[in-house]
């Protein structure tokens, strides 16, 4: 008679999902990038077996080792079936038994994941495919999940993923963390992808909020993984993590109960996650210790000023304006410009900010940008010129495709209409 079934919660949340990225990375490192799809099938099979048997027999002592071993054996079987494998099989069988006995390869596995991260973000692959490869291979998300995260069709993701994998193979990309002069260039590419991934999750769009949070969590998890490799501990990594922690802290306050967007001004600051803010501060200080100012560092510093303010009115806008001034010098783009105009208005008043906007804000990119008109409308409303404010917000609405943002702007507009009548 067998034992009474065990507690089913004996493994941590998302264990399967994280295991996916680890084992796929590890076995792809071992059997080569051309066997990536075969490895994925094997890991899928191993997880299916775990799903079927663990509920009956309980969680094994070393669940990670169990899955790796089973997946490894499936790869060997599949390769044997491919016949052309006979020569190598003897040596690989040795590898098989070596970690069947004891599995303490945590360090090696982390290293494998890092190498996979660099492969997925290889410069030969375009940014969109890099994001999809990262989410699928390292994140362990299904096509359907990635489709929901990126607001695309499942079929589109499936095709893009196939293209991405083909690219990995065709370009002869191997799994390694680059050395020397290529390292900083390649690392900044990886960080860029994590930043984009985080922003995809963080952008306010209708749809499943939970799945979007998981995207941000994944970006943070992968960012933290980078720091586990000593030679990758760079200020940019800390700064990006700080930024992601600060932004994540507001997740619970950004939407109200009816799923409507709540602006920073009206968020309930008690709902901010202070443990995440603390983590953000730790990383920001570590980044600052390098004495190197970059884009992530400034963004994180601005986010920190917001996190430090106990009320919207009490925000240190002068400090924020100063940060935007520096940022604009490093990297001039319309979003930074508009955010600077908002800060400028808080420090110097709406009138001055409007002048600033009209003086420097009339280029082609900005003219098609809905936020430009929304900012102008806000400043006009502050001056109590509601009629013009309504005109401008209508312009912003007509240019915007984001449902939640449109709803938010319409809400503003209706408030101003009431003030006129």
């Amino acid at each position, binding site marked *: 008679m067998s034992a009474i079934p065990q507690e089913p919660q004996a493994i941590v949340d998302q264990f*399967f999902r994280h295991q996916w990225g680890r084992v796929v990375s590890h076995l792809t490192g071992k059997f080569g990038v051309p066997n990536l799809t075969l490895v994925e099938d094997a890991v899928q099979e191993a997880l*299916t077996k775990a*799903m079927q048997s663990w509920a009956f027999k309980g969680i094994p002592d070393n669940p990670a080792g169990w899955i790796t071993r089973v997946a490894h054996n499936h790869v060997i079987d599949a390769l044997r079936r491919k016949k052309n494998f006979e020569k190598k099989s003897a040596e690989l069988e040795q590898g098989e038994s070596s970690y069947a006995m004891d599995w303490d390869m945590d360090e090696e596995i982390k290293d494998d994941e890092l190498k996979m991260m660099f492969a997925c973000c290889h410069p030969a692959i375009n940014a969109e495919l890099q994001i999809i490869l990262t989410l699928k291979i390292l994140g362990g998300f299904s096509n359907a999940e990635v489709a929901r995260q990126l607001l695309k069709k499942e079929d589109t993701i499936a095709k893009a993923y196939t293209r991405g994998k083909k690219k990995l193979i065709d370009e002869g990309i191997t799994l390694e963390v680059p050395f020397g002069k290529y390292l900083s260039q390649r690392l900044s590419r990886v960080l860029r992808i994590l930043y984009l991934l985080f922003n995809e999750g963080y952008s306010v769009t209708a749809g499943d909020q939970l799945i979007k949070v998981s995207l941000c969590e994944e970006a943070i998890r992968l960012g933290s993984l980078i720091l586990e490799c000593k030679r990758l501990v760079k200020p940019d990594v800390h700064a990006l993590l700080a930024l992601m922690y600060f932004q994540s802290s507001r997740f619970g306050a950004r939407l109200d109960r009816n799923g409507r967007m709540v602006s920073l001004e009206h968020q309930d600051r008690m709902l901010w996650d202070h443990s995440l803010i603390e983590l953000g501060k730790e990383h920001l200080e570590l980044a600052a210790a390098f004495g190197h100012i970059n884009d992530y560092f400034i963004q994180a510093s601005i986010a920190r000023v917001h996190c430090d303010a106990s009320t919207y009115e009490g925000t240190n806008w002068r400090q924020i304006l100063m940060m935007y001034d520096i940022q604009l010098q490093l990297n001039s783009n319309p979003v930074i410009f508009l955010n600077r105009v908002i800060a400028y208005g808080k420090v110097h008043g709406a009138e001055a900010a409007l002048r600033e906007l009209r003086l420097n804000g009339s280029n082609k990119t900005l003219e098609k940008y809905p936020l430009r008109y929304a900012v102008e409308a806000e400043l006009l409303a502050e001056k109590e010129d509601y009629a013009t404010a309504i005109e401008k917000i209508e312009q912003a609405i007509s240019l915007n495709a984001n449902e939640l943002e449109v709803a938010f702007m319409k809400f503003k507009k209706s408030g101003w209409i009431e003030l006129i009548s």
Partner: protein
Amino acid sequence: MKEYMYLFRGGDGRELNQSPEQMQAHMQAWGVWMQALGKSGNFVTGLPLQSGGKVVENHGEVITDGPFAEGKELVGGYLIVKANDLDHAADLSKQCPIFERGGTVEVREIMPMDI
């Protein structure tokens, strides 16, 4: 109380392209269900079965890989439970997570020795 066997067929979700997250959730649902059977004193024993196998006929004159082609018909595992009667046993199976994946449970009474 008599003993009954549940034969689980299909429902492994292979055709569903499940994500690792979904598989973990499914496994945990099974664990919760079986634990509940354990706590109520109905659980006796059970094991999952590997897919594939051999069918031996005529003292081994004919050995085939078996009629296992259809995933839906494949027995994926069994469970033995204690229940008052067949209806009760069938009733206990209703919460089984296999139904979420289109599988079935065949409920059979185990023939008692002391008839």
